[in-house]
């Protein structure tokens, strides 16, 4: 019975495809989710449950920016309707919620859908629908595949690229290169992606490796710290989520383990670390000297026109100004520019065209180049390296505006240079 169903549905698929291709030249029907007055944008993200801390603020901040744009007249006369669905970080829920976004809410596009496994479960169907899937919130390199996923656009650089940048920086900084280095990572794709990047960069000679499961965060990292301390680690490269970084710093402080830390860009949010360590003073002391790559203008650089205006927006809406809200506004800002660039006759195809051809004109607080083309959908291309000072500020290292960038292929080599981001648009409107 199943077999006949399969055969029949395959046949149906084929014939539909033929008919549709034949009809494609004729009148273009309007895409779902866009009218003369409204654009529906959807997202899936954990708003509740263990994975929600921090990430639940990203869509909230994006909503703040869209509200601001709507009050200022919308984009090309269209108001943005932003629909946020809680998937609790469960891939099964993600499928349900994404189906709802496609079929019930009739979303025009998705923005900032979160989670690697979660998004893998829906990316095929989204692409089949021809639905723009912009600036997904995962650093897994699998999604940067313009052939396989023509509508999907990752935003921040992949974890692999980050690991390669870290390797490059360590090898070319004599101070760090001479240190006994160790690697600690979160079990699963996060750590695996990072490991692949380090391997590709030829960095395999770790004195010790330790790992943790996300569920272990509640128990502290006594065994891991003991292991790395026993191995005499002087530089610990850590790929984990921010709450794990905080617990690691806490356990390390308790056991008086004081290596140089180098922590992934997505795992070093100071306000979350301060929350877990009890006070910002404790957090500043624990983070003093910690190295971290980043791709955005430092969040504390309030003299910067991006940072000052986004902070104004976020705080006017009563949200906390932190990495997640900063990131949320950034996503919404760049997405709005892409929609504007797609012109008054907004279609899904037009939006994808705009992304592929005009990304270099988009303004954003990213301090590294944005380069989306028809063959590479990865948005940002690299990192700068910073070090936390005793005041809790991430200070850029190296020459002014020094960045480390690379193509997204695993074999692509890291290049160092300087890059200056362009000024924002007037009043941060698209």
């Amino acid at each position, binding site marked *: 019975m199943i077999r006949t169903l399969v055969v029949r549905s395959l046949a149906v698929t084929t014939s539909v495809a033929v008919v549709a291709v034949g009809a494609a030249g004729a009148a273009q029907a309007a895409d779902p989710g866009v009218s003369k007055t409204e654009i529906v944008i959807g997202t899936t993200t954990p708003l509740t449950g263990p994975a929600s801390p921090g990430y639940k603020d990203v869509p909230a901040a994006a909503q703040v920016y869209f509200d601001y744009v709507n009050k200022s007249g919308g984009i090309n006369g269209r108001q943005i309707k932003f629909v946020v669905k809680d998937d609790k970080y469960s891939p099964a829920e993600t499928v349900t919620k994404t189906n709802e976004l496609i079929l019930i809410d009739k979303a025009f596009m998705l923005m900032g859908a979160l989670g690697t496994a979660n998004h893998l479960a829906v990316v095929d169907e989204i692409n089949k629908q021809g639905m723009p899937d912009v600036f997904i919130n995962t650093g897994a390199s699998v999604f940067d595949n313009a052939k396989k996923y023509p509508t999907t656009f990752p935003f921040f650089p992949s974890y692999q690229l980050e690991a390669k940048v870290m390797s490059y920086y360590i090898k070319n900084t004599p101070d760090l290169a001479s240190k006994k280095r160790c690697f600690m990572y979160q079990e699963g794709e996060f750590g695996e992606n990072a490991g692949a990047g380090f391997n590709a960069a030829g960095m395999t000679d770790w004195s010790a490796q330790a790992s943790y499961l996300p569920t*272990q965060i*509640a128990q502290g990292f006594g*065994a891991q710290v003991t292991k790395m301390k026993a191995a005499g680690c002087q530089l610990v490269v850590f790929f984990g989520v921010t709450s794990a970084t905080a617990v690691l710093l806490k356990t390390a402080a308790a056991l008086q383990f004081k290596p140089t830390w180098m922590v992934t860009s997505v795992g070093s949010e100071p306000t979350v670390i301060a929350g877990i360590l009890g006070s910002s003073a404790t957090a500043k002391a624990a983070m003093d000297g910690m190295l971290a790559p980043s791709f955005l203008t430092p969040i504390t650089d309030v003299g910067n026109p991006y940072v000052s205006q986004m902070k104004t927006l976020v705080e006017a809406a009563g949200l906390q100004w932190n990495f997640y809200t900063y990131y949320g506004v950034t996503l919404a800002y760049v997405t709005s520019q892409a929609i504007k660039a797609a012109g008054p006759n907004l279609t899904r195809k037009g939006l994808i065209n705009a992304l592929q051809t005009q990304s270099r004109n988009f303004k954003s607080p990213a301090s590294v180049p944005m380069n989306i083309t028809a063959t590479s959908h990865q948005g940002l291309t690299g990192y700068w390296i910073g070090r936390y000072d005793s005041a809790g500020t991430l200070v850029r290292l190296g020459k002014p505006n020094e960045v480390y960038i690379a193509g997204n292929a695993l074999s692509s080599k890291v290049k160092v240079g300087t890059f200056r981001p362009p000024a924002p648009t007037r009043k941060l409107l698209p």
Partner: protein
Amino acid sequence: MDTFVNFFLGGFANGAVIALMALALVLVWRSSRVVNFAQVGQAMFTSFVGLTVVDLTGSWILGLVIAIAAGAVLGLIIHFLVMRPVRRADSSGAIIATFGVLIALQALAAMIWGGDPRAYPTPVSYSGITVFGRVIAITPYDIFVIVAMVILVLILTIVLTRTKLGLSMRASAFNPEVARLSGVRVSRMLAAGWIIAGMVGAVAGVLVAPTATLSPNSFDIFLVFAFTAAVIGGLDSLVGAVTFGIGTGLLLSLVTGYSDASNAALVALILLALNLWFKPEGAFNHHKARSV
């Protein structure tokens, strides 16, 4: 050797907390023959109550006291509103009811205190002790936790085996009909079980929160470990819960230290299976095994 000692000490402190959570499960099981999934939720909720008090008053001890009181109240509420009515249902119904309570408690905590992880302060230093010039993997706070656990187990043992309350509780758990005939107010004894378990769970929560983070879901993993320890220990046995709670902590620490984190849960599962194969009713269960 140094390293082994450190893995051992760190695991022991972790195990003490698992032991306390397991104790709370055993207490509920002894009184009402229900596996209380909501236990970690109750502990989480009361820890938040304690943290609120600490934030307001700055007194750690007051936070602990209020948390314990909240644990008693919460245990009583769950007993009266949920467990007493549900006793008419079967055991799987009761398990599901406690599961529903867990979900509700976690949502309620997230509503009141937000979903972001918070810090719980320590009453004594959380910094490794130096012995012969070396820092070892145990802090004054860990010692505090272990001492608190030992005291709590002693008190519980005395209360449950040497007082009228304890004896009545056991009687009503093992044979409600006979207990009722001998003048024990069975339903009060069941309530007492929930109250005491709620208090023990509250202590466990307040003790574990400072070493990592406190968030609505941060104790979830303890449900698994505490349940495992309680089951291997025999569910009825306080000694079993404590022994295997500490054993689980040691095992996790040693496996994580000597191999890696993903093996720890696997080894725990294999040991659980082996243990149940040889001791289907738990290692410390004194009741006769089934005849079939």
